[in-house]
């Protein structure tokens, strides 16, 4: 077990890669009562094509990673929520484009709970009957999201940007696509993507590292897995341009919702380069259109944006984009004003003092994250899966220069690569 001390963060991380390939991280938080554990696989909704060992290619039904996530909670003796509840622990899971995460939080019997977590995720139990039953539940989940304008405007932007990459397929799939899912395909996905070599376990909180690691080692040593063979994933080539400039969905809303963003031309690779790109993009967006920018205030004064307005960015080795927006009375005018505002910046550049302030803000945000075991564990996994050092952000932000951010602006803000997504009330009475 390796021990890494982060002096400036006042945190110590323990790590070990087990013989079966599972990567385990433990972060004890002194004085905390709660423990939060996340067991994740590098398998998400976008991993929908792969080659089997025999060379044959498989195209999975849309929504199957998420369906599998739901089904893992079922065991021959009932559903695993009950087992956690016996220890007062609450369990949950989520699926994103590039990972599926199973988690619990508990204030006692932490080692027992970690074993329950490992055991249920490593022991699939599917029957024709329980697979059919789940279709009704997930069908209602899909309908709930259909009615949610925030989700629709967010997803609409991804659909507008990407023509081929499977991130454009809704994580839950459709009622039709999940209808084709059967237990055999679920088992195949589990076998392919849930090998310990493809997974990561992180435990943060009231954890005693030596004892916890020993328990995890023993648990894993008691199970047999074939040697790890990394799944051979297949992704279609994504054309450089956005798929469509504008994507409109009709749904009853009080004001139109408008998200827009820029699709990154080519990925930055991984590791340090990717982290620097993400850091520079975030500082750039703060400077351009964060709550303390001139532009934000001008848009607010013109009643074009409200408190719902915000931004985010996704930077991964395969796809990367920014996303800006919220409710607006006039999407066209909003975009026009943003173009003008960004154009002004393009001529004048960012001011050094503003850059310093935003860098400071990002450092503060990073430190604040360490108050929350949930945030630590989830951010750690997210970044680790993208090849970024999850605890390296202080160095990244401190070495960032104004020049980096100016260059980022020139690279990223390319109006040819802008896509816009709008949700507005339909014409139907």
């Amino acid at each position, binding site marked *: 077990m390796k021990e890494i001390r982060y002096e400036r963060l006042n945190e110590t991380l323990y790590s070990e890669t087990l013989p079966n390939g599972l990567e385990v991280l433990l972060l004890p938080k002194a004085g*905390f009562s709660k423990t939060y554990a996340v067991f994740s696989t590098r398998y998400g909704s976008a991993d929908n094509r792969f080659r089997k060992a025999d060379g044959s290619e498989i195209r999975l039904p849309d929504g199957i990673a998420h369906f599998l996530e739901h089904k893992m909670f079922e065991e021959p003796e009932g559903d695993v929520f*009950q087992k956690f509840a016996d220890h007062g622990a609450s369990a949950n899971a989520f699926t994103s484009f590039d990972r599926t995460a199973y988690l619990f939080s*508990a204030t*006692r019997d932490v080692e027992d709970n970690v074993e329950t977590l490992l055991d249920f995720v490593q022991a699939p139990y599917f029957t024709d009957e329980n697979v059919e039953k*789940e279709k009704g539940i997930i069908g209602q989940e899909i309908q709930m999201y259909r*009615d949610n304008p925030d989700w629709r405007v967010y997803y609409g932007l991804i659909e507008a940007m990407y023509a081929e990459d499977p991130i454009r397929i809704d994580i839950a799939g459709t009622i039709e696509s999940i209808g084709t899912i059967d237990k055999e395909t679920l088992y195949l996905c589990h076998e392919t993507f849930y090998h310990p070599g493809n997974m990561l376990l992180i435990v943060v909180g009231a954890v005693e590292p030596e004892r916890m690691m020993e328990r995890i080692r023993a648990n894993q040593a008691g199970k047999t897995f074939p040697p790890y063979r990394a799944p051979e994933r297949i992704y279609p080539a994504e054309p450089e341009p956005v798929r469509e400039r504008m994507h409109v969905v009709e749904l009853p809303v*009080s004001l139109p919702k408008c998200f827009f963003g820029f699709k990154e031309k080519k990925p930055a690779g991984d590791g340090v380069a990717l982290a620097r790109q993400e850091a520079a993009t975030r500082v750039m967006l703060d400077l351009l259109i964060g*709550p303390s920018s001139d532009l934000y205030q001008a848009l607010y004064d013109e009643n074009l944006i409200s408190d719902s307005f915000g931004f985010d960015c996704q930077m991964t080795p395969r796809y990367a984009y920014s996303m800006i927006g919220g409710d607006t009375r006039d999407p066209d005018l909003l975009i026009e004003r943003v173009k003008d505002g960004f154009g002004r910046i393009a001529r004048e550049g960012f001011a050094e003092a503003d850059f310093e302030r935003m860098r400071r803000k990002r450092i*503060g945000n990073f430190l604040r994250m360490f108050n929350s075991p949930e945030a630590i564990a989830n951010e750690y996994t997210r970044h680790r899966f993208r090849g970024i050092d999850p605890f390296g952000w202080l160095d990244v932000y401190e070495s960032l220069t104004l020049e980096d951010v100016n260059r980022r602006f020139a690279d990223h803000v390319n109006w040819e690569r802008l896509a816009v997504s709008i949700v507005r009330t339909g014409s139907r009475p």
Partner: protein
Amino acid sequence: MAESPFIRKEIKGIRVHVLPSDRFKTYSISLYVGSPLEEANVTANAVIPFVLRRGSAAYPETRAFRIKLDEMYGASFGFDLYKRGNNQIVQFRLDTVADRYVAEGGSDRLLREALAFLIGTLCRPALEDGRFVAKYVEAEKTTVQKKLEAVINDKIRYAAERCLQEMFPDDPFRLNALGKIEDLAAITPENLYERYRRWLAEAQIDLYVAGDTTPETVFGLVEEAFDAGRGSAQPYRIGNPPAPRVEVKRVEESLDVAQGKLNIGLTLPVLVPDADYPSALVYNGLLGGFPHSKLFVNVREKASLAYYASSRYDGYKGMVMIQSGIETGNRDKALAIIADQLEQVAKGQFSDVEMNQTRAMIVSQLTELSDSAFDMIAFDFNAVLTGRRRTAEELAESVMAVGREDVKRIAGQVRMDTVYFLRNRQGGDER
């Protein structure tokens, strides 16, 4: 009995509560300003914090106000407005990195700046001609209006609000904490400033600070910065629970939605200060508070009718709200299953396993409060609000002592009040 870790002092008519701790990397500050939820003032009270966040005497321009926050290592500042029973609470929050992690110039420089900033925001707003800045008032009236209009965008929330409106037609509790759209037009910079002066003088104010500091430091800073000409602090008033209805009220509405929303309001005349409060928590936990609860297991897992099916107990008002999202055509099926679950709990048809799991889950929630400064603050404030001091440990002990008969006694007091159903539009091109 465990003692509360907060150290308290009344200063200039506000209650100041300090939690010294070095477990957190930030100073967490919460400022609660609470007043009775009243038809006449609810909207103006709601607009006040929106105007205050636009600028203070020290930072009258909104942009300068926000730049100051960025400079404090991205201090996160915000506020929430909500109801606690028939009280309208404004909670300002400020969270800033503890000095030891970014040390430059003094051991509590950021704490000093943060407290001065927050107190200045509350007590010394930006003014023009002796009243609020007109531009800010107009813009924030629009913002509040947009927020009220946006309730319909989130159908889960919309259905919950509609159910409350139908359940409490004559009680201000039906109101959104943001007030009423129709009141906004009459608000002016002058009358809002008048309202603000009274609000600041008469509301209950509690200031909480948690982090790596001492009570003396905080008390000293508050003495210096706070200035609102207030009398002495008064206790909050928590009302009576609602009277049960004779016949269940049924309301159905249709909108352009894919999924139907079923909300059921029930009265439960047990409030936080009551001795039966821990039993009411266990009752709700058995019924629908968790994924092992009867609603989740039977509506979702067994009948496969819904993605979510849960219940929430409000011990400040004395009610329970059940909610679920279902196919419109499954309304009666879902209602029957829910009614059956209510009856089973009332008849004591639940296992020891269910009891143990429910108590364990609630105790776990109470135990983990201590990991978050803001959660500890919120729990303590609720004790201040209800006038019933229980530490999380004491409440957890009481929950562990709740037995089957206690739950049955609670269930016997629960009355179904209002069934609200939001359905899709009939006919046309509906599937």
